[in-house]
């Protein structure tokens, strides 16, 4: 278990082309690019409020195109929270997450106190849907983690995803805003309850 530091590290995992980078970029920069560029590995930093102070939210966008077990293990052992992304248009991409989840479980010992979000991205592409929302929910129940469907393209549920993830962290009190808008965040989280299931 990493020492509590000023950094809060979130690692984004998922198969190639499911939209990990798009999600992160939408959250960090608020933009969406319709380009097709695989990621090697990118890290984004953002200052957030944490325990009445500030800390750096460090988001690691991993590559989905080549899994090097050694690299993956290190990302996991360094990470505090995990976002597991699949595309609702590809059943295979959900399958791909299973070994990653097992890996997280193996390295962290237990996922009880580790914030993990299972994310079905590309929720705008309803016509190509292969994975039903129910199936995603069922998988999240099995993994005892939270679940959400998002769309980086239409900016649906993206900010909520990160808020929810931070809310899952019980060891620290974190929020995305840095100017102490506690109540605002709290309301937001309540509003979210309907959309995401927290196990």
């Amino acid at each position, binding site marked *: 278990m990493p020492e509590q530091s000023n950094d809060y590290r979130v690692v984004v995992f998922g*198969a*190639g*082309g499911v939209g990990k980078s798009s999600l992160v970029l939408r959250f960090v920069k608020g933009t969406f690019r319709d380009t*097709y*560029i*695989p*990621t*090697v*590995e990118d890290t984004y930093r953002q200052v957030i409020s944490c325990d009445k102070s500030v800390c750096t939210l460090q988001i690691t966008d991993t*590559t*989905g*195109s*080549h899994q*090097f077990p*050694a*690299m993956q*293990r*290190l990302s996991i052992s360094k990470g505090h929270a995990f976002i597991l992304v699949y595309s609702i248009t*590809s059943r*295979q*991409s959900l*399958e*791909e997450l299973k*070994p990653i989840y097992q890996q997280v479980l193996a390295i962290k010992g237990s996922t009880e106190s580790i914030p993990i979000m299972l994310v079905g991205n590309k929720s705008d592409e309803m016509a190509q849907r292969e994975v039903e929302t129910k199936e995603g929910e069922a998988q999240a129940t099995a993994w005892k983690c939270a679940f959400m469907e998002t769309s980086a393209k239409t900016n649906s549920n993206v900010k909520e995803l990160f808020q929810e993830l931070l809310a899952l962290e019980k060891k620290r009190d974190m929020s995305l805003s840095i100017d102490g808008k506690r109540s605002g965040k709290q309301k937001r989280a309540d509003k979210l309850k309907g959309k995401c299931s927290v196990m």
Partner: protein
Amino acid sequence: MLRQSLSILKQLSSVTKSQDATELLHEDLVMVEQRVEPAKKAAQVLHKKLQACMQSQSGLEAEKRMKKLPLMLLSISMAESFKDFDAESSIRRVLEMCCFMEKMLANMLADFEVKVEKEVLEPLNKLSEDDLPEILKNKKQFAKLTTDWNNARISRSQGSTGPQAKQDGLREEVEEAWRKLESIKDQYSADLLITDCFKHPLPRMFKNISELKEDNSQKGELSVVCKVYGEPLLSHLSRTNRDIAAPIQECIHMLLRTGMREEGLFRLAAAASVVKRLKTCLDQGTVDHSEFSMDPHAVAGALKCYLRELPEPLMTFELYTDWFKAAGEKDLTEKLEQFRVLLKKLPPENYNNLRYLVQFLSLLSEEQAINKMTPSNVAIVLGPNLLWPQAEGEVALFDMASASSVQVVTVIEPLIQYSSSLFPEAVSFEVPDLPEVPDVTLPSPVTHSVVAEKEKLSRTVSSSSSTTSSSSFHLPLSKTSRYWSARTDLYLEFRITT
């Protein structure tokens, strides 16, 4: 009364006209009878010689045998020798590997010899020492009784004019002799039949020896050699007598046919199970192109895996830093010149395979309008599988790899982009005819290809199929003795009548 005995006599004389014992036997049995003696001889000689072939002491457990085998002794000395080398030494690695192999071979040999002894030597010994002499004894007795019966019959016919009592006595004598003759004839026939049945197992036993041997060598190959994944490039190429590694060539052949237009080829994940099956097929050298061609992402995944699992990257550890130095060169002409120099420094095997692969990737990136895989994208997803640093521990690997996998793109991208100028050799695979998009962009040295090579390829693949055989023998007779050997799934079944 007289008529009755006369009719018996008539009956008997019709059966036995001559004194030769063989006349009493069915003609099949006569044939078999002639084989008994040579069979005994053969069994004796072969038993002796086969015993001499055994490398281990007979009668011991497989484990004890193994310890005394020369192969095991070799393995032990190797184990002792490699301890003196430091962990990094390649000699140590080779010795470790050989030590393991020799031990495995010794183990297999010991198992094999135990099996040969149980399944071949023992039955052979029983055949030559017990069964066949028994038959020969019966044969003698049969001959003697035949003579007795004939004598009795003759003396009876001579004394047919004598008193009734004598006649009766003689008749009883004849009948008694006949009964004895019958019973020994039955036994002898049965013996001969067994012998005949043994004739089936006999050649089979020898077939078993050769099968066991074959099975052994196949197992050896399977575990020692048949792994293509993870095998050093050079040893794979020399073992299979190839220029291009089988997984590279096979996967590219499949991709050329069905994968060129696939969006995100090499980027998107394929079903792990399909990739695994394809890898197994490639390991065994039997790939059904039609089975996997429909799943180009799995084929791309298997190809990526092969490159990644090579003990040394295709672009070598030695030139690792040189590649980055060259890629850092600002001036394009100078950069390409440096690449050319480095390409010449690569071992010829690595160069050939890299050329083959990069020429294919270049062709793939020409379809970028459809597959979205630009040279840069291909370099990002495939680059880290072509070049990685030699690292001590996992942490070092990670730190170096995460930094270098960004850099590696700067090496691989120009390689793909300027493929035609860096690799002047003609493309040695069949360039598929893709309609719709005009092929005017093809670089000049691309030649349309050689079908012969493809044929050669498919031949080598189909001929090298290897499966462990299991065999059973059934003879449609009653008594069964079965030898079951769990380890090889090979069982032998002899059925013998009594």
